[in-house]
């Protein structure tokens, strides 16, 4: 039990923070109800996938600066393919875009492994490449999304046997998010591959000497990151109905949420749940600040300050917790 708390303490704390913020929101705006929660989840959706994409790579000991650009490219690809096409055609578009994300992500990994250039530089270069490709696909925001795709994140999912009052708090977007993440993350976490990803993030040399195929694992980690980013891109197209070739603020947000979520930037530590809760916390803070009618520019300052403060606090705890003299 104590072990559970030690491992999950950070996530539990985050969750408590989320609940506290939620109560605060209720206090600020007594009318804050299930509908607003639904729109919060819809706003979180692309961020959550961006965070998932970043988390996988960071756990494997890397970093992916191209997440936002990848989302932009997959989003415009989906939007321009679905533009003027039939509803059924979207059934083909979705897997195609997901496969594209997987392949482009794997390409990131292959480039890192083959060229031996630091990951931060490779993904910086692919950031430019993907951004350029997005501009080539769609010069200006445009395109369209199939109606059923747009409808799949609006409203709530009726669950038989649940009273409507509880059902109202289960937006379709949340279900979609949980299903998409679980379908990939849970089998991964329990497989040998998942263990290998943690191993190369923890110590590449030790992993190599224990017979972990380091290069292959790294490529797969980046491929998964690309897959999550493609989901994020699709989520963007689903929620806006169009594709925009200019990447949104997802890179910074993803790195912030990963760190807030208790995933060490050095790799090998943390899980997916923490960062996802963290991204909810960050969005809810923004909602609260908007509800308090604070200047949106001040909101940016507060968000940045929270991020820096929490990260400093986390780092401080880590230093205190370590035996004296055992510096990294």
């Amino acid at each position: 039990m104590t072990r559970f708390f030690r491992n999950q303490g950070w996530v539990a704390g985050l969750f408590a923070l989320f609940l506290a913020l939620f109560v605060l929101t209720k206090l600020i705006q007594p009318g804050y109800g299930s509908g607003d929660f639904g729109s919060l989840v819809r706003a979180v959706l692309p961020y959550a996938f961006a965070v998932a994409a970043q988390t996988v790579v960071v756990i494997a000991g890397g970093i992916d600066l191209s997440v936002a650009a990848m989302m932009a490219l997959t989003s415009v690809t989906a939007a321009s393919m679905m533009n003027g096409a039939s509803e059924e055609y979207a059934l083909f578009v979705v897997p195609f875009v997901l496969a594209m994300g997987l392949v482009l992500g794997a390409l990131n990994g292959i480039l890192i492994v083959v060229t031996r250039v630091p990951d931060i530089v490779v993904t910086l270069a692919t950031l430019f490449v993907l951004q350029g490709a997005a501009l080539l696909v769609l010069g200006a925001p445009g395109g369209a999304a199939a109606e059923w795709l747009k409808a799949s994140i609006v409203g709530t999912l009726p669950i038989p046997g649940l009273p409507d009052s509880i059902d109202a708090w289960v937006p379709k977007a949340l279900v979609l998010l949980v299903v998409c993440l679980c379908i990939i993350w849970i089998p991964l976490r329990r497989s040998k591959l998942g263990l290998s990803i943690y191993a190369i993030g923890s110590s590449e040399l030790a992993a190599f000497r224990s017979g972990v195929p380091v290069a292959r694992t790294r490529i797969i980690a980046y491929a998964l990151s690309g897959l999550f980013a493609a989901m994020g891109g699709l989520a963007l197209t689903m929620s806006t109905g169009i594709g925009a070739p200019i990447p949104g603020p997802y890179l910074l947000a993803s790195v912030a949420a990963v760190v807030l979520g208790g995933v060490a930037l050095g790799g090998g530590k943390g899980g997916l749940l923490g960062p996802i809760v963290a991204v909810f916390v960050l969005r809810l803070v923004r909602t609260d600040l908007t509800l308090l009618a604070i200047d949106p520019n001040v909101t940016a300052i507060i968000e940045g300050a929270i991020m820096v403060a929490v990260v400093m606090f986390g780092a401080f705890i880590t230093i205190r917790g370590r035996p004296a003299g055992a510096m990294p």
Partner: protein
Amino acid sequence: MSSSATMPQPVSFGRRVKRFMADRPLVPLIILLILLVVILQILRPGIVNERWIANTIKFAIPLAILAGCQTMTMLTGGIDLSVGTVATMSAFIMATQIVSQDPVVAFLLAMMPAVLIGLINGIGVGVFRVHPLIMTLGTSLIGTGCLQVYQRTVIASGAKIPDFLNWLGTGLTYGFPNALLLFVPLAVLIVFTLRRTGFGRLLYAVGDNERAARLSGVRYWQVITALYVISSLLAGITGLLYIGLIKAPSLSLAEPLVLPSVAAAVIGGTSIFGGRGGYTGTIIGALILTVLTTLLTILQMPEGARRILFGLIVLFVTAAYLRIVEER
């Protein structure tokens, strides 16, 4: 190689060239720079003249100074992504305060946020041991927010570019850009600091093996704090220079220079993991990137294709450079 020791055969020409380049890492960079200029001259005969060279140097200098910030922070294994925001802040504050204040006061006011952000960065990285990437991203977020709030307060007073900065940024004397008057002493100072002073040695030592440096009595946090303050100050000065060149104060003035500044330092042979590199390579890296941008503009490709090529070339150059230098 043992075979060459037992049999004194003449080493093949290719090998000798490679070894020569590995010993003098600047040579391949200069060759690449000349190659790019030659390609430019072939594509557009007559473009390479005095005016073009002066122009290229003018645009390369702000990039080179920012890349200097990256070089120094990268030597310690860090990175400073707040340089863009710092440069923008000092430029914007200078342009708006000069309307009502004495130039010296305006200059001091413009440098204030730079020192402050540098100090916060340094304390966060050095004392609290936050990852530099996160720390500098966070402070740049806060800085941008502050700048937006500040913009509201000065929106009525208008902005102007001081004549002196105009002269420094765009002026020519006997065909030489005046900006060189600022850059040459600055570059000499940086190179001298890195190569010949104790502080420079400390940067290399901390980046090469932090533990060893610490055990031999280096006060880590003092070195890091000083480093980030210096980096921020340099970024602030760059902002002033850049506003004289661009002549249009905006809230995203120097932001597009951030990622290229990292690329320039990496192309120039500074290791992003710390402990290896120098400023002379970075200057040539900045020149290469500036010429490359001109080249891509002249090819009249769509914006998207230009970004793709930029990313690919940065990646290729870095990979090739690592291949050459590391084969010893």
